[in-house]
């Protein structure tokens, strides 16, 4: 599985990479903001995108709208401190597939990733 990890915090990217490593994921591309990520999606061709919300240059919700506007259907999980219901709804409406709230345990993030990929596989098979 190829994962595009978008977060302006190197510390958070390292933490999430640790979770992905326990899941056997080794193909990871990192981006520090949405614009940086958009410049990498065509070359990297991710199977999953993990995305922070609050970032400089281009935030997560702007990235989602731009990415879905390119008709790209790769599953996106928003990994963020933005936990209010209206924020979650805004993200889902923009095209986010699932949502993980910081702080998270490795187990909880792993479960969300697995369920998101299972749903995406089932949708593709249907």
């Amino acid at each position, binding site marked *: 599985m190829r994962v595009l990890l978008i977060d302006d915090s190197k510390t958070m990217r390292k933490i999430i990479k640790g979770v992905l490593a326990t899941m056997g994921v080794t193909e990871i591309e990192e981006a520090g903001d949405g614009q940086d990520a958009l410049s990498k999606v065509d070359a990297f061709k991710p199977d999953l995108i993990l995305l922070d919300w609050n970032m400089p240059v281009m935030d997560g919700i702007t990235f989602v709208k731009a990415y879905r506007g390119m008709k790209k259907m790769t599953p996106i999980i928003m990994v963020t401190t933005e936990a209010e219901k209206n924020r979650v709804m805004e993200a889902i409406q923009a095209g986010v597939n699932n949502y993980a709230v910081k702080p998270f*345990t490795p187990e909880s993030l792993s479960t969300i990733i697995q369920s998101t990929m299972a749903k995406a596989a089932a949708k593709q098979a249907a």
Partner: protein
Amino acid sequence: MNMDARHINAFLEATKAVFDTMLSLPVEFEKPQLKSANHTHDVSGIIGLSGDVVGSVVVGFSRIPAAQIASALAGSRLEVGSADFADAIGELTNMIAGGAKAKFEGLAVSIGCPSVVIAPNHQISSPSGVVGITINCNTAAGRFAIDVVFQSCGKASTKTKLATPSAAADPSNTKLPIGNPI
């Protein structure tokens, strides 16, 4: 809108969640108190609040606790001033402020991107006339403080006075009773 017990409890709960979940480091809270004008830190993570409340959150440390807590979050040894140190302090501040503001029921609040100040005995000033609170926190890695300042932005205001919760080592006992404005 001024700060009341619900807002302070939101910071207690968010801080506990971050330290329990991401650092595996239990945190104990002292009695929240009015923010002192000459409160100093060696390292400060700062994040702005905007929307229905306007203000700031400062997570302030002395050097050694800052290095130890940043290292616990990052999972590797970080020295104060190293390339990844400020990033870790910023992310810690982001999670505390973001987790707290998500608990502000009925208020639309946004947080900015964090900044980090590293300088011996610096002060983070607040606008005059604005009341802030300080929550001193203790962990096995050392002590730190959370300074929270809210400024009215036209919504219904609450009279500001200091509540006097009993100090306790158990974070759940440090929570303020809902309805007590400070």
